[in-house]
């Protein structure tokens, strides 16, 4: 298991580094069109060929990975923060407050996630600039993905609420706000980290689904989901298997994250 984790961390680190250095590594800009070479096969010049508009696919995969892999953790951070806020308040207050808030969380969880996401996305203008569409997509993912984590965090806080150090701190007259910030939250760090890591692959996949449905990041900015729209041309996949490159990157990343999360669970 240890070697698997090392390999997985190496894969994730390599993909992240490549995504971060996309501006340097990519032979061309993601929007640059080589109009004389549309749909060209892989070559020295175009490592993964070009798309229908003559844009270098390798460059677009690099930039797309950057968008998906850097913003999914940002969305995960938003959702974990929200979950920490709601879960901590719920678990700390306990009693009727906890029951009421838990009922609200359960109701939120019973909403079909993708339907809710699409409904709220449709409330926003469709003619957003590409950068705004990226921000809106991932912020929405972060704002809507907190409920399941809040339940886990609430259970963790509930377990700690009556522990010795909390009773001591309360007996010494510690203010509830300080109690939460100084005593409770630092002890919740492993749970928060696990929730953060669990959310990342979920958000990468959600963006990919939205992108494939045409409701994700706007063109010409690439994202892994947007790039996979090329797969809709089913007949072309057999002739041009290099079209599968964004899917392979996505599956590698999401699998790696899942192995990391399950490894953490086994260790803890």
């Amino acid at each position, binding site marked *: 298991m240890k070697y698997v984790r090392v390999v997985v961390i190496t894969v994730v680190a390599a993909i992240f580094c490549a995504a971060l250095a996309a501006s340097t590594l990519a032979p061309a800009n993601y929007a640059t069109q080589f109009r004389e070479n549309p749909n060209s096969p892989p070559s020295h010049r175009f490592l993964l060929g070009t798309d229908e508009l003559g844009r270098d696919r390798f460059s677009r995969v690099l930039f797309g990975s950057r968008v998906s892999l850097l913003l999914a953790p940002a969305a995960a951070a938003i959702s974990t923060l929200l979950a920490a806020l709601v879960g901590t308040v719920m678990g700390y207050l306990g009693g009727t407050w906890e029951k009421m808030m838990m*009922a609200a969380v*359960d*109701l939120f*969880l*019973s*909403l*079909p*996630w*993708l*339907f*809710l996401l*699409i*409904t709220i*996305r*449709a*409330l926003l203008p*469709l003619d957003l600039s590409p950068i705004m569409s990226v921000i809106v997509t991932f912020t929405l993912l972060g704002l809507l993905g907190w409920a399941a984590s809040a339940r886990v965090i609430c259970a963790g806080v509930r377990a700690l609420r009556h522990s010795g150090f909390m009773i001591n701190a309360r007996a010494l007259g510690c203010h509830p706000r300080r109690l939460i910030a100084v005593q409770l939250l630092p002890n919740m760090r492993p749970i928060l980290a696990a929730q953060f890591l669990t959310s990342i*692959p979920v958000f990468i*996949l959600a963006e*990919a*689904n939205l992108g*494939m*449905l*045409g*409701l994700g990041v706007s063109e010409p900015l690439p994202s892994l*989901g947007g790039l*996979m729209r090329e*797969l*809709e041309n*089913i007949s072309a*996949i057999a002739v041009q298997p290099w079209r599968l490159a964004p*899917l392979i990157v*996505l*599956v590698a990343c*999401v*699998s790696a994250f*899942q*192995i990391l999360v*399950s490894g953490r669970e086994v260790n803890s």
Partner: protein
Amino acid sequence: MSRSTKNVLRGCVLRSLTIVGFVFLSGILCATLVRFAPGFSVDERELDARLSSDSLRALRSQHDDERNVAVFYGRYMAGLLHGDLGSSRLFSQPISKLIRDRAPTSARNIVYGVGIGWIFAFLLALAAVVMQKPETDFLLSTCAGALISVPTAVVALFVTILRKPASVAVAAALVPVLYRYSRNILQQTWDAPWITAARAKGLGSAQILFRHALPIAAPQLITVGAVSLNMAFSVSLPVEVVADSPGVGQLVWQAALGRDLPLLVTVTGLLATITLLANAGAMVVNEAIHPVEA
């Protein structure tokens, strides 16, 4: 009346009240979103240059009373009680008709998908747990992990290439998730001390499974069964779009592209109500079969 029956009845009443409360709240939310959606009370007919100013005034006056928020809420909620879900701006048809037309396709996709998914996932989980072979467990867990990492839309695409129906795509997307849940639940039960004791006494695997393990794991499996309905709703959306299956998921996607908010919020509210009913049903069944655990 026995105590356990009273508990089941109390649970039924509480859950029914929760669902009624949710439907009321979601109705108000739907009405608010529809009332304040861009373009509310704008009639496309007003753009017709042939209409006289009197006709235009008459058209505008049709929406005057709807501008009063309280009147609008009242009418919307009364309509909901009578099964009138409003009308779609994109399709210019009553929402209830649109849903009625497409619900059978979605129901077929979801029911068959969840059924096939559960059969495969449960059998694989049983095999992994009962066989107790690390290689089998590793292989199945790896395959499940890899399949979970593929977006549902891509799964649907590959199923379409294989010329299989949309329900197979729903099943293919659900199997890895359901496998993980059911395998963990069964493994937890299989590791329990009374199962070890039963094995030590020489009971056969089938006897241990059906008489000692499954009855204990049943409440959790039933709960996951209810949750799988919610998962199937979310999975059905990209599947119906990619597989071109004319169901409610495809309708919602078209509504999202056409910014048809009344249709979107109504369908989401309806699906959430169905999910709540399924969850409530699972809890009542659990309380009925395991009064102490539930």
